Every structure is written in C-alpha cells, then in structure tokens.
C-alpha cells in the first residue's frame, strides 16, 4: 500500500515570508493542521494551568502560609480546574481525534472542514476570553478579577449577589463559546466516521480509536448541551432578572448542581474514552498482538457511555437526597466499574502471550493501566454513598480525580505523544529524554497523588487556602508539594524533548513502530491536504498486518 502513496512535497516553507506561513495556518481547514493547532493551543494552556497548580501547592506547603491571599488562591483553583478541563484536556483530545480519525479510516479530511476550523477558533476564543478576565474582570464595580467561584460555579455563589463584577461572566461566556466549539467538533467527528470510511472498512473493522472517538463524540453532544443551557440560564439570572438559580428569589441551588453534573460526570468519560482509544492502539502494537476481544471492547465502551449518563448525582451524595435516590446512584456508579474492568482485563489479555517492547509510549500505557486501576478502585470507594459522605469534598476526592486525570488521562496522552509524534513531525522523540520524562513524572505523580489521599481521610477539605497546624496534615502537604515540583521538572523535560526532537530527532520513516493501522501507510508527516493518493481498501481491522503477512492475513479470522 505504501507504494501507492506518492510522496508529494508541499511547497517549501523556507521560501515564503512568515506572514504567508501565518496566514496559511490561520486560514487552514486541513484536519491535520487544525489537529496540530488544537494540540499546541492545549500545550500552551497546560503550562499555564500547571503554573496555577504550582501556586496552589506552594501556598499549601505549610499551615498558615501567606504566599498568596485567599482571593488569589480561590482564583487559582478556579482557573486551574476550568483551564485543565476545558482548555487543555478537551482540545488536546480533539486535536488527536482531528489529526488521526481521517487517517485511520482512510479519508482525506473531516466531513466538514470549515466547521472544523470554526470549532477550533471558537474554542481558542473561549480560552483567551477566560484569561482576559484577569484584565477585564473587574468591570464597573472594581470587584473581582479572574473567576473565583470554583470550576463548578455552584449556585448561588455565582449569582450577582455573591459574585459582583464580571468575573463570573467571563467564565460563563468562555465556556459557552468553547462548548459550542466542542458540540460542532463532535458532530464533525460523528459525520466523518459514519460517512467517510474507506471501502471495506465496515463498522466492525474500524480501528478501536475511531470507535471510541465516535462514542466520545456522542457523549459530548449529550453532556455539553445541558452545560450550555445552564450557562445561558445563569446569564439570564445575572442580566435579565431570571430566578433559575437565584435562591434569594426562590430559585434552586440544587437545579444548578443537576445541570452541572449531568454534564460533569459524562465529561470524565468524554476525557478518558479517547485515552482508552490511545491505549487500545498502543498496547497491541507494543505487545505485537491484536487487541483482545475487539467486539467486547466496543460493547464495553458503549455500555460505559450509557451507564455514565445515569450516575451524575454521585457528585451530590451530600446534598440531602433521600435514601432511595442515594441507593440508586450508588448502584449505577458501581455498575460503571464492570465495563471499565472489562476494558482493563482485555488490555491485559492483549499483553498476555505477547512480546512486550518497553518503548516510551508503552511505558506510559503501562503506567496508565496501573494508575487507572487504582483510580477506579478509589472510585468504587466513593460510590459507596455513606463512605462518600466522609470522603466527598475532601482531599481524598481531589487525589482520586487527579489519579484519573493525571495518572490515567495524562499518562495515556504522553504515550500518544511519543507514539504519534513521528507521524505528525516526521521525526522520533528522543527515547533517552522520553525515559527520563517517564521516570521523573512517575515518581512525582506518586509522591503527589498517593499521599494526597491521606489528608482527605484525616478531615482536610478541598478548596481551602490555608489550614490549621496540628491536624496531621502538615508533613503530607509538604511532601505533596515536593511531588508537584518533580512533576513540573518532568514536564519541562517533555517540552524540551518536543522542541529538540523537532529539529534534531531521528528521521521516522512511514512506519517506525511496525504498526497496523492506515495512518502508518502514508509518509510522515502525511501528504498535506489529501492524505492518501488513492483511497485504500481494507479487508480487516489491521490492514497493514494483512499487507505485511499476506500468508496469514487477519481477514481470515475476523
């Protein structure tokens, strides 16, 4: 198949002025360039969100510390959460989906390239608007600055009475804008996968990556819509005299919670399912075996998507729901553990009997498996409603969801970077720096987030800018902060690797990992604008395996 691909070089960038290059990138509708834009944009915000996390951790290093004021601290955790979820995790995953889905299904672009560009710029606008609040948030009242209502913006804290000025408005409108961007991207991914697969690629032969992104996109539609609706209601409350969440006029604080968490919980799966997708591509290649139980993996993902739509109120076990509601949300939450467990077992089955190669992408995926296992088990603890009454709102929960987001999502993402960077840039990331990055990050991660569970068990609530000495929290918080610094250093190693390898990295060639999906059949980076000189035809889930093993093709067994 690679012989089908003519290597057509793009016009040499060196010959053009930087304004022409910039113009090309700003006006691009190419899914690969938009994917790269998403990823770079998210990396930029990753650094900003990381700086905010560092400020939080320095403040909490000692009891009664006064590194920052309570007002600044509250802005920091609000901005850290909002940034990391909406302007790092979502765009970076959309970036990978944008770049890889068309390549993996043998398409030349997304279904709606212009809508794709529109989505990206809307999301980008949202992020910049949120950060403009540092300058413009005071508004006419001189009150506020960046939003400080927490990333849930619980009612009535975000109402005009308790959040004067415009800081909450920046939060609302930024999320509304990026939310529309996300909905458009989801529609685009669904349309692309449904209608643009190459000949022979039935749904049952699609790479799991495409399947999982299809499910994720469906969830985005269901999850972001109520969030956007709630944002509009909040704006109506704040500016048009509405009383949806205005408790002083009889509105309901719990209504906002329901809206927020019916977005918020599926959102967790919106973020983790694409990471399952990375793992489902990387683990087989480095185990040298096909994914174990492909149909079960697809079924389990769809099952997670359905069940996770009915678990949102487990974020609200402490709001005084009656015992029947609490029991219902306890069992639905525990039930999500079953398909999730099935996925872990299937990855295990994939590695079983394989020949595992410990390249950097695989190291990160193995880290992902171990850490996601623990995150899932602390999730089970939190699903037991009475246990949750103790743990919810404490540092245990903070440790739990960072285990999911950093230990799970970020580790899988790093794996994805090491795996697909050669495809995107044409050069390999340095294995030496990669291993250093992995080990440093692993140590920092465990130092921070393993220990962070304990202050929660000892009664330390989240979102406090300082704490009393003598409650058994001091040493733990000190160590947690040290871990955060180790993670920061590891992240710098990663960024250095991205930059250095772009110029000095080993040439990758089309297929550096001896992999099996269609993106590895084209040049690295893939031909701009059209991807495939002639649209490929596939006969199995691993078209490149078939090509490399004509004597024993997959199509014989599927």
């Amino acid at each position, binding site marked *: 198949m690679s012989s089908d691909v003519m290597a057509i070089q793009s016009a040499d960038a060196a010959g053009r002025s930087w304004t022409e290059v910039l113009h090309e990138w700003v006006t691009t509708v190419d899914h690969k360039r938009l994917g790269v834009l998403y990823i770079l944009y998210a990396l930029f915000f990753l650094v900003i969100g990381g700086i905010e996390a560092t400020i939080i951790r320095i403040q909490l290093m000692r009891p009664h510390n006064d590194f920052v004021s*309570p007002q600044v601290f*509250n802005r920091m955790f609000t901005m850290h959460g909002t940034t990391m979820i909406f302007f790092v995790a979502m765009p970076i995953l959309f970036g990978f989906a944008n770049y890889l889905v068309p390549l993996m299904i043998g398409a030349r672009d997304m279904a709606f390239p212009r809508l794709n560009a529109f989505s990206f710029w809307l999301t980008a606008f949202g992020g910049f608007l949120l950060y403009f609040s540092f300058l413009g948030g005071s508004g006419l009242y001189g009150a506020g600055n960046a939003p400080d209502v*927490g990333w849930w913006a619980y009612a009535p804290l975000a109402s005009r009475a308790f959040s004067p000025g415009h800081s909450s408005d920046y939060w609302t409108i930024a999320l509304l804008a990026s939310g529309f961007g996300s909905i458009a991207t989801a529609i685009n991914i669904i349309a692309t996968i449904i209608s643009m697969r190459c000949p022979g690629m039935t749904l049952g032969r699609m790479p799991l990556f495409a399947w999982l992104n299809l499910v994720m996109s469906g969830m985005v539609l269901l999850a972001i819509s109520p969030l956007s609706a709630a944002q509009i209601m909040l704006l109506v409350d704040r500016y048009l005299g509405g009383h949806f969440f205005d*408790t002083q006029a009889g*509105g309901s*604080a719990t209504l906002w919670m329901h809206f927020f968490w019916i977005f918020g919980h599926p959102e967790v799966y919106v973020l983790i399912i694409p990471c399952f997708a990375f793992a489902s591509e990387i683990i087989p290649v480095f185990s040298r*075996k*096909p994914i*174990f*139980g492909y*149909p079960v993996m697809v079924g389990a993902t769809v099952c997670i998507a359905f069940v996770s739509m009915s678990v949102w109120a487990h974020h609200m076990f402490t*709001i*005084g729901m009656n*015992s029947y509601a*609490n*029991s219902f949300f*306890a069992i639905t939450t*525990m*039930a999500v*553990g*079953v398909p999730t*467990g*099935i996925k*872990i077992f299937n990855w*295990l*089955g994939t*590695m079983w009997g394989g*020949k*595992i190669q*410990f390249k950097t992408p695989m*190291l990160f995926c*193995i880290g992902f498996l*171990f850490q996601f296992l*623990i995150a899932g*088990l602390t999730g*089970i*603890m939190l699903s*037991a409603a*009475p*246990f949750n009454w103790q*743990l919810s*709102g404490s540092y245990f929960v903070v440790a739990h969801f960072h285990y999911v987001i950093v230990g799970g999502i970020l580790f899988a993402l790093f794996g994805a970077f090491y795996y697909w960077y050669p495809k995107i840039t044409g050069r390999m990331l340095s294995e030496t720096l990669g291993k250093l990055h992995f*080990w440093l990050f*692993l140590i920092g991660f*465990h130092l921070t987030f*393993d*220990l962070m*569970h304990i202050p929660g*068990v000892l*009664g330390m*609530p989240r979102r*406090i*800018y*300082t704490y*009393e000495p003598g*409650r058994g929290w001091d040493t733990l918080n000190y160590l947690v902060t040290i871990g955060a610094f180790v993670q920061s250093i590891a992240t710098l190693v990663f960024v250095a690797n991205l930059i250095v390898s772009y110029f000095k990295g080993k040439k990758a060639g089309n297929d550096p990992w*001896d992999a099996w999906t269609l993106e590895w059949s084209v040049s690295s980076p893939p031909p701009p604008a059209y991807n495939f000189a002639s649209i490929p035809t596939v006969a199995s889930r691993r078209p490149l395996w078939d090509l490399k*093993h004509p004597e024993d093709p*997959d199509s014989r*067994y599927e």
Partner: protein
Amino acid sequence: MRIVETMQKADWPTIISRVVGVALLFAGVLLAAGLCTATPQDNSVPSIFDSHSTPADSIRHLSFFVLGVTGLIFLVVFSLLSYVVVKFRSRAADTVREPAQVYGSTQIELAWTIIPVLIVVVLFLATARVIHAIQDAPKPAEAVEVTAIGHQFWWEFRYPGLGVVTANELHVPVSDSSHPTPTFLRLLSADTDHSFWIPQLAGKTDLIPNRVNETWLDPHETGLFLGQCAQYCGTQHAKMLLRVYADGPEDFKVWIRGQQHPANQDEREAAGRRVFETTACLNCHAVGGTNGTGRFGPDLTHLMSRHTLASGAAENTPENLRLWIENPDAIKPGSLMPAMKLSDADLDALVRYLETLR
C-alpha cells in the same frame, strides 16, 4: 515487508517502582488509620477512621469492608498486570517471529464480566444497608434538636426547644447506648452552600439555601471534635471552622442553663455597652437585653463562653478580640466583618464590655 523484532532487556525498575509506588497509597491509608486509633483521647487529628458516634462508626465499618474488597481486587489485578509485564516482555533470545495472534475468547470474557457483577451486587447491598441505617434512623423522644444555619463564613446554632442561640461552637450531650440522647440537626443556609462536617462524628451534609437538610450525631464520649465547612462558600471558606463539644449529661445541662441566662449587665462597663448600642455593631450582632438584635453576625450574648473568635480562626483572648474589632482582615482576610474604625478609648471600652458577656 520485514518483521522487526526489538531486542529489549527486562525492565525491572519499571516493575519494582510500580510495586513500591502503589503499595505506598494503601500503606498510607492504613498508617493514617493506625495513627489515629492509637491515641483515642487526642482528637486533634479529625480522622474518619477514629470515629466516636454511631453514624461515623457505621461508615467506618462499611469503609473497612469496601477497602477490603477493593484491596483484594487491587492485589489480584495488580499481580496479574505485573506478571504479564514481566513474563511476556520481549527477550533478547527471541526469534524474529511475531507471537501467536489471539483475537479473544468468549469464555474468558464471560468470566471477567460475571465476577465483577457479583462483586457489585455484594458491595451495593452492604452500601444500601448503611444508607438506610443512617438516613432513615428514627428520632427518639429524648433527642436534642438543633438548627444549624450556615453563613459566610460562620455557623449559627439555635436550640429551638431550649431557647439557646450560639455560634461556631456546638455543644451536644454525650449519648449513652442504654439511654440514647442523639442530637438531630436541621441544616439551613443564609446565603451560599456550606457543608457540615465533623469527620469523627458523622459524614458531611450540605447546608443549601431554600432547602432543609438533616443530619444527626451521638458522641459516645466527651471531648472536643473538630471539623470545618466542606463546601466552597466564598473567600473565607478555609476559616469557617467548626467545633463540637460533647458534654457529659450534667455539664450539658449546666451549659444550657448558662446560655439561657440573659446577658450580663455590668454597670461598670456601661460605656462599652453604649459603644455597642450606638455604632454599627448592632446591625449584625445581638446581645440579649440590649437593643442589638442583628442576625447577620454571631449572637454575642455569651461571647465569653466560647473558646474561639471568628469561627475558630483565633483563640478568644482580649488581645485577639480587640484586633478582630479593629482590623478583621488581620485574622481573617475577606470576612464580612468590617473594620469598625473606633477610637482607641471606644475600642477599649467595647472590648471590656464584651469581656463581661459570659
């Protein structure tokens, strides 16, 4: 096409560090539990595993069960993963052939679906039982009733049957299992969401405006139990601390009687009282027997019976009281108490007056 077989050495450090890193978490949780059960008299560490009240006890028992089950799952899956990573690593002596290509197995899939389903059923039944036992517990006739109202950033406690109003430091009677006198709290909020959490006595329950929630606790032994607001409520969420004093039956009666008394009227401090009654103090604060009936701030009728000021942010000493009135931001920046801008003479008189409110 050629098949590349990578020659890779065993990555032992991966495995070892994984074992160490992950064992840390569970060791840590157990350590925390051990630490706190070792010294039952000292309640300075509000550990959820050092419980002293029926709801917290039932939660602790459930949590040990859940920890046991999840710990077991962890051990099994962790061992499997470690085994796979070690056993099936690619070896230098490998031939260049790819391993056998296996696509799946229905029997195995069924096994690892059904076993987790059974575990979920067991966990759910255990959970539902405790939910019911705590939430649907009947209220005995001897129960003490308290209304707790969350404010930015302090706690108001009212004992409707007893005519007592206090703030930030809740007094409850010890509850004897032969003669239970639990305390049932109605939880309200005056402004934003808050959460009532005393880890050693009960799980947390939110205080939400326009909504009445309930919780209960029945400390088995006397002592001071610490907690704090557990739902982000604004700038000073961190210093919305909470103290619960579990008193013996006699001490509780004495405390109630003391609180029921009208405010001390010491004529020697009339000047300070005049300051209180003629400045903005009385917009927010009440002192029984004066014309101050404000409810935005804590009731000061028996201010001196409390150990702390500013919802636990500072010890209740004359110096701290003076500082708190003069410049609240020095103790609790962002609290809603304004700096009163009194003259030194007025400030001294006022502090002396407040000192008499025992």
